[in-house]
């Protein structure tokens, strides 16, 4: 008679051999899946971003305040950049979190590094989101409106 060995994570193994501690649920699986899903979307968003900003027309030489204002006067690019900001920051934060977990051996070191990482992530996401939505593409400087084809006369 041969013994039957249950496959890992089948749910029928003894509790002490479960890989997740229970309280963390399947966070790591969700994170793994998120990296793949956000990765595919980011390839499209970032390649589009690089193409439009660097390869069309005058390329990088055309980038100035008016260039950004012209893009963000259009909700399409506001949404594009917002999606890129959130997905790239969460994708990058999860990647760096994995690297910290891999290389920082002491518990306190890991905790500190991740605290710094998550703080930077929150600041950058909040700042970027506010900038995209509170931005005025047609500012009036010293009583003079800046020229721009997208601004009301």
């Amino acid at each position, binding site marked *: 008679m041969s013994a039957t060995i249950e496959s890992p994570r089948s749910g029928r193994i003894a509790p002490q051999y479960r890989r997740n501690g229970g309280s963390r649920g399947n966070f790591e699986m969700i994170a793994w899946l998120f990296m*793949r899903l956000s990765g595919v979307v980011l390839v499209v968003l970032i390649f589009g971003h*690089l193409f439009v900003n*660097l*390869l069309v027309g005058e390329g*990088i030489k055309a980038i100035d305040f008016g260039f950004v204002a012209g893009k963000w006067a259009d909700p399409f690019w506001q949404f594009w950049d917002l999606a890129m900001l959130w997905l790239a920051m969460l994708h*990058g934060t999860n*990647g760096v979190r994995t690297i910290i977990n891999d290389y920082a051996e002491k518990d306190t070191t890991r905790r500190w590094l991740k605290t710094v990482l998550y703080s930077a992530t929150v600041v950058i996401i909040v*700042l970027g989101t506010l900038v995209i939505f*509170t931005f005025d593409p047609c500012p009036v400087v010293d009583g003079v409106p800046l020229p721009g084809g997208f601004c009301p006369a």
Partner: protein
Amino acid sequence: MPTKPAGTLYRGREGMWSWVGHRITGVVIFFFLLVHVLDTSLVRVSPEAYTAVIGAYKNPLMALGETGLVAAIVFHAFNGLRIIAVDFWKKGAKYQRQMLWAVLGLWVVTMVAFSIRHLSLALGSH
């Protein structure tokens, strides 16, 4: 004479080095992303502040830096798609090595095209 042990799927070969490359390019891109959100946020300070700081991106040295950054992004993007294929395609693990060479081939083609266009624009006289 003891022979060297047969290679494992990843260690010391294409699989391992692509993993190393993916980590390094990922970290580089992440730190640039932090800086890039900060510099773009200057549009909210004033048009002059933004245009002055973004002007720092427009010199020959930075043009090379941008090309390096895009090289990192393009490798990370193509190799990321390879990782997805390894995970979700039935024959992904079997062909991971061939897929890495496809990634590198596409990466070279993309970077030659990008470099010609970007450097001629960034280093051009007008």
